[in-house]
């Protein structure tokens, strides 16, 4: 009898009866796993996040991330990482060492940079302006979120979901409202996975068939671009360096993200002599960062965090931000087409929100549905990649003003 009682105390049942919230979280972990595994929604992130939720939500396992004020000793002093590990276990150790410090999102951006090809953007430089227009959702939702009662910092974190870029959303939330990290990261990755649904929806609501049939290649033949690139390799090497300097000048607070992205891109474009570095950045480093980012972000999703009215706001607001961003890009194309002779397919505006490269693939499919010869992929990639820069810049602005 005594043994059975002690055994019972070792288990998590007692805690669960007092507080059944974790059971709901397990159900949510199950849904996320289903989406990641079966529906293949961004599985590289959603599967680790879901498993992190699962591990975090059973009392006694010491795998849930504790709130930052437990680490804060007051007077600008904080518990050290060894004490955090000692007191709160390895998941908090990883979270406070890798995430709360803001380390992993820039590290992942370095890998993204080493996998990114700025070629399509350089060949159609003008199209990258639509990657600016498609950040509209961020700042509009910021306004709305503040209006409905979010604090400015929370609103900024919510709004950045509209940037359609995972590491950017996570980085911004770490800096502005770390207590919302779990829901915001999950919303960001879920809506990115839903891009094949969201983009066609907005496109159907806003574009005419005639617009969607605009053939970019024909336009290029009618109005050929001024300068052809003669030495693509040299341009691709110079581009990240110059861009790095410019961004540092104007938006210093986006340097951790964009600086690392451009560094990764540079070592990739240099080629054979720095191949070891670009392979490491886009391979083991990025993969390890993805695992630990996913698990720890998931582990912030305790039931107290999730079962909050703000979660609903994040889910609704995130979707609205996505929709406005897509519309913003499309709208900017329409305005451009009013003035310019060389017309642009509005799908290129729609892909400006980023979600690389899925948005471009979805847009290409839409274009092909209306005209089986109208391949817009390369053009979409231009605004698509510039959308990554756009949302990182927007993040920099938010952090600089609200952080």
């Amino acid at each position, binding site marked *: 009898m005594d043994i059975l009682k002690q055994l019972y105390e070792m288990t998590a049942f007692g805690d669960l009866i007092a507080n059944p919230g974790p059971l709901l979280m397990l159900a949510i972990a199950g849904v996320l796993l289903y989406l990641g595994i079966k529906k293949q929604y961004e599985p590289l992130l959603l599967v680790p996040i879901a498993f992190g939720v699962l591990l975090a939500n059973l009392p006694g396992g010491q795998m849930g991330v504790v709130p930052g004020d437990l680490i804060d000793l007051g007077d600008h002093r904080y518990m050290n990482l060894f004490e955090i590990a000692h007191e709160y276990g390895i998941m908090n150790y990883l979270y406070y060492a890798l995430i709360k410090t803001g380390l992993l999102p820039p590290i992942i951006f370095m890998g993204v940079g080493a996998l990114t090809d700025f070629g399509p953007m350089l060949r159609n430089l003008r199209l990258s302006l639509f990657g600016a227009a498609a950040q509209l959702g961020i*700042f509009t939702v910021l306004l709305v979120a503040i*209006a409905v009662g979010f604090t400015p910092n929370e609103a900024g974190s919510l709004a950045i979901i509209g940037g359609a870029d995972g590491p950017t959303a996570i980085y911004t939330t770490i800096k502005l409202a770390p207590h919302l990290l779990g829901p915001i990261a999950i919303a960001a990755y879920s809506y990115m996975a839903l891009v094949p649904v969201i983009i066609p929806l907005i496109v159907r609501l806003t574009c005419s068939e005639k617009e969607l049939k605009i053939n970019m290649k024909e336009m290029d033949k009618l109005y050929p671009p001024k300068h*052809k690139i003669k030495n693509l390799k040299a341009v691709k090497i110079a581009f990240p360096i110059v861009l790095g300097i410019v961004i540092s000048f104007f938006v210093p607070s986006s340097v951790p993200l964009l600086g690392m992205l451009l560094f990764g891109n540079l070592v990739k474009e240099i*080629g054979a002599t720095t191949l070891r570095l670009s392979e490491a950045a886009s391979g083991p480093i990025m993969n390890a960062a993805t695992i630990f980012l996913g698990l720890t972000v998931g582990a912030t999703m305790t039931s107290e965090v999730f079962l909050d009215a703000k979660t609903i706001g994040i889910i609704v607001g995130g979707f609205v931000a996505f929709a406005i961003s897509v519309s913003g890009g499309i709208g900017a194309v329409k305005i451009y087409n009013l003035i310019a002779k060389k017309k642009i397919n509005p799908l290129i505006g729609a892909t400006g929100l980023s979600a690389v490269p899925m948005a471009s693939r979805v847009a290409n499919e839409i274009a092909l549905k209306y005209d089986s010869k109208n391949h817009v992929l390369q053009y979409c990639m231009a605004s698509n990649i510039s959308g990554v820069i756009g949302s990182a810049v927007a993040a920099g602005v*938010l952090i600089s003003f609200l952080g």
Partner: protein
Amino acid sequence: MNGNFEIALQLLGIGMLTVFLILFLVVFLGNIIIRFVNRFIPPVETKTSRTNVVQPAISTGKMAAIVAAVQAVTEGKGKVVNV
């Protein structure tokens, strides 16, 4: 609350302005780089193309062909790490 809303309005202005400014600069400087490179750094013919060989840029069509070849050899259990 009222003050916060004002901040948000300001940020809408500043934010969109900055994003456009930066991407406008990207276009502008990108063009300058292209013209500069076209003028002063002519493409090195065969030499660079040889170093390019090491780069992992391969069309999906070719990739599929190689994968198929490897599968043929390994009876569907081989894996193409990097081509």
